[in-house]
């Protein structure tokens, strides 16, 4: 096989992406955190480890708290995913994080307090 054939082979040939007509064809290596409220045990390790204070936890009335992650501040370091003792925070491939208002980049989850 000649070198030029190798370079033009489908494995090495990289074509222009189809985006926005087709989704991105590779996944991000830096994971976008997402939250599973039913797994959270309120140990707040994520809160302590977040370098940009993108995570906020506040109590809302009786027996509930709100877990919020501001993707606008998040630097996708995945420390919260690593440190969570109950695996409530997981990494996803989501990358289309666009909003017309910074508040639109905040993901909020309601968590029931366990007692």
């Amino acid at each position: 096989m000649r070198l030029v054939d190798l370079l033009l082979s489908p494995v090495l040939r990289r074509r222009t992406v189809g985006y926005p007509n087709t989704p991105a064809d590779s996944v991000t290596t830096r994971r976008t955190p997402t939250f599973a409220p039913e797994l959270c045990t309120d140990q707040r390790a994520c809160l302590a480890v977040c370098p940009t204070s993108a995570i906020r936890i506040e109590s809302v009335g009786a027996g509930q708290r709100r877990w919020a992650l501001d993707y606008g501040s998040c630097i996708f370091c995945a420390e919260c995913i690593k440190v969570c003792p109950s695996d409530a925070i997981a990494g996803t491939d989501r990358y289309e994080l666009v909003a017309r208002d910074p508040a639109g980049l905040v993901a909020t989850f309601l968590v029931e307090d366990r007692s």
Partner: protein
Amino acid sequence: MTQPTPGQDLATAIHRRLRRSLHVRHLDSGSCNGCDWELNSLLNPYYDIQRLGIDFVASPRHADLLLVTGVMTRNLAEAARLTYDAMPRPRLVVAVGACAVGGGVFAQTYAAHGSAAPVLPVDVFIAGCPPRPEAVINGLLTAVGRL
């Protein structure tokens, strides 16, 4: 007749509203260069943003849209304001990356104002550290809808 694809929709929307291509000026207001490299890659053959009728220009006077990367430093806040003032109307501002959107890791330093929003009227915010080039294309698509 086939359904128009999102890419064709974007090109049509740009042409309908501007009667020409969307010209983008990139403004670094104190970036670590991570976002800047992602914006650079939009022009390479792999992402090829010119296929969508979008191009980068060298002066805000030629631009329809300002892409702001990096935390807004005190030293560059005035320059950012002057850049915006030099742009012809209609004009758009898009904040790219965690620093321009929410201050990011540099939000608390003495040398920075924080996010771009208090200094410039930002229309669209693109999160990511840095955002993928696809995310930037997605943000431009959203911004063009605002014209």
